[in-house]
């Protein structure tokens, strides 16, 4: 192992996050520490409103870290400009949402291409790459379909194709199977697992789905703004990575 490979993909120290609400401040995250090695799969649970989405937002550059250090994929996120954060989101992380987050007016292919457009790829190359990605998620024939013509599971797979379009190091998923039936959820879970196994993508998945959580290398739990769980700091299950 080289020094660079020993660096964890996600390293968080002393992260607190406070929302100001009608004069009073609500501390959602309190002194969170987290270390996730390259290619690890972490599941994250916690009661509603415990700050899971907030933590994911900070890791994915949707929220600026308010304190401490957050390093993701080698990028220190504290103090980045808006455009630099956008560049980070485009190249380093991929998001998967419970609500899929597809643009209703665009076809499956165009939704995937949108991520590539923002990456500055040419039209023809974009088209080819989108077809390839849709093939990878098992939707080869559905490129021209719009979201309303696809089932929930298919939409989520389009969203995953879009999330991996720019080959991110990290996939952040917020309840990715929350709106899916059991069979679709299983297909999405398998797809996420294959990302880790075939591409070495690091995964942080907020989920209450036992099947999906079961695939994780270790489990994190947010309680009262603090991250608990024996594996929280040790990181990855060394046996699995070896």
């Amino acid at each position: 192992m080289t020094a660079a490979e020993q660096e964890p993909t996600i390293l968080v120290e002393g992260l607190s996050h406070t929302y100001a609400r009608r004069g009073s401040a609500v501390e959602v995250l309190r002194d969170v520490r987290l270390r996730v090695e390259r290619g690890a799969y972490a599941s994250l649970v916690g009661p509603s409103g415990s700050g899971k989405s907030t933590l994911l937002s900070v890791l994915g550059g949707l929220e600026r870290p308010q304190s401490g250090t957050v390093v993701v994929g080698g990028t220190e996120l504290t103090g980045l400009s808006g455009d630099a954060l956008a560049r980070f989101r485009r190249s380093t992380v991929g998001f998967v949402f419970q609500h899929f987050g597809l643009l209703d007016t665009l076809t499956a292919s165009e939704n995937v291409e949108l991520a590539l457009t923002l990456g500055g790829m040419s039209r023809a190359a974009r088209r080819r790459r989108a077809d390839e990605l849709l093939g990878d998620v098992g939707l080869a024939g559905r490129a021209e379909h719009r979201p309303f013509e696809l089932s929930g599971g298919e939409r989520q797979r389009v969203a995953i194709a879009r999330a991996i379009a720019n080959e991110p190091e990290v996939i952040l998923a917020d309840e990715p199977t929350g709106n899916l039936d059991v069979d679709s959820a299983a297909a999405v879970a398998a797809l996420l697992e294959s990302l880790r196994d075939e591409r070495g993508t690091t995964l942080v998945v907020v989920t209450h789905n036992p099947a999906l959580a079961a695939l994780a290398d270790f489990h994190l739990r947010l309680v009262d703004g603090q991250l608990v769980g024996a594996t929280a700091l040790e990181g990855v299950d060394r046996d699995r990575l070896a």
Partner: protein
Amino acid sequence: MVSVALAASLLTALVAVATTARTRVLDQITHGGPLSSISVSAAAPSPGQGGLDNPTPGHAKALTGAALAQMGRIAHVTAVIPVLQDRVIVVPPAAPPSGSRLCLAPPDNESCHPSGTASPVAVPAFDDSIVGINLSDRSSIPVSLLAGTYPSPRSTTELDVTLSYLSHLGLGQQQASEIVGTDVEIGAFSVVARGFRIGLRWTTAEIVGVVTQQAGSGGLLTYPGLVRADFAWTAAGRAFGDSDAPKSPYVAALVQADQLSHVQGVRNAIAAIGYSSSAPQDVIVSVEKYLHVIEIILTAIGAVALVIAALGIANALLASVRERRREIGVMKAIGARDFDVMRTFLIEAGFLGLVGGLLGVALGIGVFLGIGSIANGYLIAQGLPGVPITLAWQIPVGAVLGATVISVLAGAVPAGRAARVAARQAVEA
């Protein structure tokens, strides 16, 4: 977008109607001549009236060739067109041209009784004046053709007549074309011997057209050649004691200034040379002011409609931003910069404006053409010339551009809002 279309159509139609009305009104004032034309009369200026459009002229004063040449050298004068005039006796033809329904012959002419009903009347000779002016540059003289053609420049035997000639013959404007092609005898007076013995110099001329003219006062109009010859004949009477014989063939002149704002200066210079002049400058200036006000009002109405439409666009886009917060968050989550989001909304606003503007201009042109043909129908029914229904290309292009630009401006606020939507919205419950 519908509101943008309606506003753009309103703007196009109003501005087009306003500009057409303006052309029409100014044409009426100048009788089709240029706006900056000054007419100089053979009279001294009356003191203190130099600024009036139509001052009472002072005492009569011959307009000499030398004075005209002097006027030609005034700064900002582009042309001096002399108007010649001579008194003549006019003798209408004794027989109608073949094929004509006119009957100008004495009662014994059998051809005048085709149905045996009308009783033809011989038209006696009458006194009139013949006006000579260079008819080549017709855009700068107050003459318009009603029937036939203009005389040919080199001929001294072709002339046009005015409606007064027709009325001498008991004819109306409707019969103008029938007079074309007939001959007329004109006789210039002169005192040919002491004791006021009158001699007449006769010319037979062909009437080639019927005109209205404001250049001089006379029922016959032609190029200067014929008038000059007649004048020479009349003026020769001076040698035999005709002290009333005119000293100059010029009764007036049309002086053209290069632009309306120089008319007053040129008129002052003409007064300094010693002649009275008139020009519709003040009327034109004040009419232009009123027309301008009307244009401004109509344009403002259209513009207000456009602004209201733009506010509609802004409002619709603001609602869309509110509705699409999560979508905007998602776009940011997959890497869109604030600028990318803003640009998306600005393009959307511009597109709405462009399409609305194009639809609106098409509609507005239709409305304008409709109004134009209704107005023309009315004018023609009233016996007035119609207006040309043409549309300057600047109007539709301006309306489309205006609609697009205003829509983009209206989109600025919603676009700014969209750009500031937090990326965090993507994972909001």
